[in-house]
């Protein structure tokens, strides 16, 4: 279970550009939930993910995982139980290293990076099998540098790599936004499959309303640092793309756009 309690977040505190994003923001995500988060630009979606992962500090409030406070924990320590896929496919892989080396790196997460051989020969078949389920032919390119792959191929690898070792939370930060529709579809299906297989608690930020409706079992809509819509289970199933669009328009009118 992940809890955000009374989060306060300011940007540029103490300057004329001071901007308050979250004021007493609360959100609780239960184990096994797959939350889709939508909202306009600047509504605080990505900031929320960054706060959960520890990429940015908060000015007030608590972040709890299963009841224990991780607010002060460093980003890299939190990542022991969090996997994250970024919007930019380049963020999840190392371009100058080969596919095999990238897979080996990911496979060793949570273990000691010592002076033993970087790639474990016994695991190569496992990597192949994992890659082959992507259906992109990457399993035959184990010695190709990742920098030579397309964005979609890299993002597929990033997704595989971030979920390779046992994690509790999967954070998806608009991870299909930079891909063409066909590849995006493929990555989304793959995401759903992995989440279900591994029973991961997932938070997915997306601008694709159809994905938000089709996937996951909870839908959250954010606006100006608040959740203005939060539907779970059957309630969520009844939602349609049009419903969200209507809501979007209402917000826009309020803002004067």
């Amino acid at each position, binding site marked *: 279970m992940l809890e955000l309690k009374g989060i306060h977040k300011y940007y540029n505190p103490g300057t004329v550009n001071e901007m308050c994003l979250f004021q007493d923001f609360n959100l609780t995500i239960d184990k096994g939930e797959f939350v889709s988060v939508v909202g306009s630009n600047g509504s605080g979606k990505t900031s929320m993910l960054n706060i959960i992962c520890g990429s940015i500090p908060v000015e007030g409030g608590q972040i709890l995982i299963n009841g224990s406070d991780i607010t002060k924990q*460093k980003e890299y320590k939190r*990542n022991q139980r969090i996997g994250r896929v970024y919007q930019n496919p380049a963020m999840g892989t*190392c371009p100058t*290293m080969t596919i095999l080396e990238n897979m080996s790196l990911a496979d060793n997460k949570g273990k000691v990076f010592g002076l033993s051989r970087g790639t474990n020969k016994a695991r190569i078949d496992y990597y192949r099998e994992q890659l082959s389920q992507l259906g992109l032919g990457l399993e035959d390119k184990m010695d190709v540098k990742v920098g030579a792959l397309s964005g979609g191929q890299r993002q597929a690898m990033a997704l595989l790599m971030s979920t390779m070792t046992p994690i509790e939370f999967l954070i998806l930060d608009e991870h299909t936004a930079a891909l063409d529709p066909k590849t995006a579809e493929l990555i989304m299906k793959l995401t759903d499959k992995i989440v279900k297989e591994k029973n991961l608690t997932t938070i997915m930020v997306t601008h694709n309303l159809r994905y938000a409706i089709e996937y996951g079992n909870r839908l959250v809509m954010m606006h100006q640092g608040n959740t203005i819509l939060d539907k779970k289970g059957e309630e969520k199933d009844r939602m349609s793309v049009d419903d969200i669009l209507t809501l979007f328009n209402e917000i826009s009118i309020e803002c004067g756009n």
Partner: protein
Amino acid sequence: MSFITSILEQGLIYGILALGIYITYKILDFPDLTVDGSFPLGAAITAALLTRGMNPYITLVLSFLAGAVAGICTGLIHVKCKVRDLLSGIIMMTALWTINLYIAGTANVPLFSQKTIFNNDLMEKIIPDVLAPYATLIIVLVLALICKVLLDLYLNTKSGFLLRAVGDNDVLVVSLAKDKGNIKILGLAISNGLVALAGCIFAQEERVFEISMGTGAMVIGLASVIIGTSIFRKMTLLHTTTAVLIGSVIYKACVAVALRNFDPQAMKLVTAVLFLVVLIISMDRKKKVNTNA
């Protein structure tokens, strides 16, 4: 012939330095100016130890360690005090100037009467007379190859993977639940260790420690790395270290050609033109590869 031997000797000694710079510049993407201080640091340690009767082979290890400590300091300044990379190196380089003077005692320590790795009873026994003119080259070659092979092996360990990843994409390293700062510090330690080792070998070959010997070491190493990696661009990582060593030899060859055939005043200009020629040739090659792809 002895002229060519000299180029190879010099090239390989500076090649070890270039291997160190390869780690920071190419792998870590960290412009590390500590080098100008850690190169003479190795020499200073060597001079201080040899004049006190230390076994010359042990100085190799101790110089490496001293360089590693210097690298760790640069890393700590950068990571813990959040000083910019370039400035952290400048701070350490400046500090090392004084430290080197303290270690060596004076600005110039001759080592003519000391036993060195090139000149001791053991070496005289091992190396047959026929090979005597090449003794220095053989020893330097062996040392350079040992450094290269160990570095290759290290870069293929799990720890080495992480080092390569941090320069490539530090976000991924954080995702892997590792502190990228510590890995950078480790990389700087290995890099400056190699640089100090090169300083140690250079001091023993040249039989003198001179405080100013590090001035421009960074530039020489950087040029070697760039020349080497540009010419052998298509090779896989395993061979990049070899390319760096060869790059260093080419650098020294350029200097040698400029020295031999031109006016002393024109030396630097000719060297610069030779580098440019080498780089242009390798760049054209790259273009060709791209159009073929």
